[in-house]
């Protein structure tokens, strides 16, 4: 139960407290370092998880916070991946600058696309995101002289990070690099969602009808967050290109777009951590189960999806948060 406020100072404190770092968060990020020490054979998987988690965060910003349902966001992941891959093939393999350029590229395309996205809602919005995703896929397939088509991009080689850390066979550098980028982007996203802009996004999600009535240009807000989200997705794609030296059409696939939404719903939307937790659960489960039998994977994930939507619509983190709230 909240104590009533008696002064604006207390209001500010209350707001400040909501965005403070909890000990769980600090423990979580420290735990992210464990693969280096405890599970070095799993470093490549950890790398994949970090990349996917970054992608999931980018989608959480628009899906969880602004309420834009998208089934085509892999478009930006792929655009970033191909950009980073292609400039590396053409001779510029410096990771950080390449990554930033890939992110910027995806962000610019995202900003242009955002004008289309904000014109539609509901089913039309879902279909436009779906259609744009497929469009980009077909385009990449058609431009096989640039992208390698169904064979994928060949000849990517990434120079050492900061000139020092060469990408080793075990994946130490890869995971370290990916984790670093993930953490930085997480910090930026955290800042964003705890800002007035984040509040505006939540307002849009909560009641878009009220937004113009308080003088808000909500479409401008949506365009901005969509562009930022596209840039971050592009960074994730670029990371994949640089750390695995492979880029193929699957980086743009509908499966990737759908998987990330599933990860988000598993962990819980609108929490940032939900994106990360959902990714971990999904990828670890897939790694373990799909190896046994792909049928079981589809059955299991299908059942899990249905179960989560019916019984834990706020995802695992949301469910846990409810339990904690009830205990108070």
């Amino acid at each position, binding site marked *: 139960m909240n104590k009533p406020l008696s002064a604006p100072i207390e209001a500010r404190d209350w707001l400040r407290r909501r965005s403070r770092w909890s000990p769980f968060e600090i423990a979580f990020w420290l735990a992210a370092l464990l693969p280096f020490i405890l599970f070095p054979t799993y470093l490549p998987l950890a790398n994949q998880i970090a990349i996917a988690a970054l992608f999931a965060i980018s989608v959480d910003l628009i899906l969880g916070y602004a309420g834009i*349902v998208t089934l085509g966001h892999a478009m930006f992941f792929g655009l970033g991946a191909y950009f980073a891959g292609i400039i590396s093939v053409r001779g510029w393999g410096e990771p950080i600058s390449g990554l930033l350029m890939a992110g910027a590229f995806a962000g610019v395309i995202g900003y242009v696309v955002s004008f289309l996205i904000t*014109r539609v809602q509901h089913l*039309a919005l879902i*279909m436009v995101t779906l259609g744009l995703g497929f469009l980009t896929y077909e385009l990449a397939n058609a431009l096989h002289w640039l992208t390698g088509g169904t064979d994928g991009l060949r000849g990517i080689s990434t120079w050492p990070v900061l000139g020092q850390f060469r990408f080793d066979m075990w994946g130490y550098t890869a995971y370290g690099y990916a984790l670093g980028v993930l953490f930085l982007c997480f910090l930026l996203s955290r800042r964003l969602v705890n800002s007035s802009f984040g509040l505006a996004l939540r307002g849009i999600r909560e009641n878009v009808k009220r937004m113009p009535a308080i003088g808000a240009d909500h479409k401008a807000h949506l365009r901005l967050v969509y562009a930022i989200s596209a840039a971050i997705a592009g960074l994730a794609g670029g990371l994949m290109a640089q750390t695995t030296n492979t880029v193929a059409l699957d980086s743009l696939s509908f499966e990737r777009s759908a998987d990330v939404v599933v990860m988000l719903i598993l962990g819980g939307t609108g929490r940032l951590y939900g994106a990360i937790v959902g990714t971990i659960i999904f990828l670890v489960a897939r790694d373990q189960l799909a190896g046994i039998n792909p049928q079981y994977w*589809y*059955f299991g994930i299908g059942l899990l999806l249905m179960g989560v*939507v*019916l019984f834990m619509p706020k995802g695992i983190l949301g469910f846990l948060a409810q339990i904690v709230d009830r205990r108070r």
Partner: protein
Amino acid sequence: MISQIAIVLFDGFAFGMLLFLLSVGLSVTLGMMNFINLAHGAFGMFGGYVAVTVMRQLGLPFLAALPLAFIAMALLSIVIERTLFRRLYKAGELNQVLFTIGLVFVAAAVATFTFGTVQQVIILPSWLRGSVEIAGVRFGVYRSFIIVVALLVTALLVFGLERTRLGAQIRAAVDNQRMAQGLGLDVEKVFAITFALGSGLAGLGGALAVEVVGLSPSFGFQMLVYVLIVVSVGGLASITGSFAGAALLGIGDVAGKYFWPEIGSFLIYLLLVAILLVRPLGLFGKR
């Protein structure tokens, strides 16, 4: 050249008629209840497997398998609607999308388990095989059959909507649900019946599709995109819209694959996005 165009138009229209049967149910139920059911393609898959099974295990003729596919799917849909979908009407788009996608996954896994991943084959009765030659062009008999069935169904639907009491109830529920309820209409029952009819049609479409498109556990996914395009481009709760959208997509798809195989799909998606940007409610959508 003309004969090529004629064949493409014919094959495309036949494919479009299949898509119409697979999509019209979704268009009407989406328009009525705003419930996004992405498992609708999987309903088609179920119909296909039912048809294959009754023909193979029970030795029934093809013409008997078709109505059975319809009935089986209609009945199953009532069960699904009662037990599962009903809880999600207020759940929001994202949840509906994800739940029904989960259902497709489960359906695909069950199909794989039961039938394996191999393509199912249907033995058509002899009078449906082969082709007919008109003005130097060979038109497939089976595809003609599909077109006839679909046109019959369309006529029945239009007649039913305009002339029967149930049809009037459906139209009322689509137009203004709250008012219809206020006037004493049992909207839930109307929706259940509409849903069953629509799902049954999907089952019928799936059964008819086995010969043309093939049937495997991934049918639900493959057809999903087509169905969604038909519904969103055609417009919700519109039989005309579904018909037009399906015909357009069917012809466009076949023509694209035939004349411009490299960029055929690309053009379709481009058109999809363009149409939706100009008319977000679809070509014949009202709300």
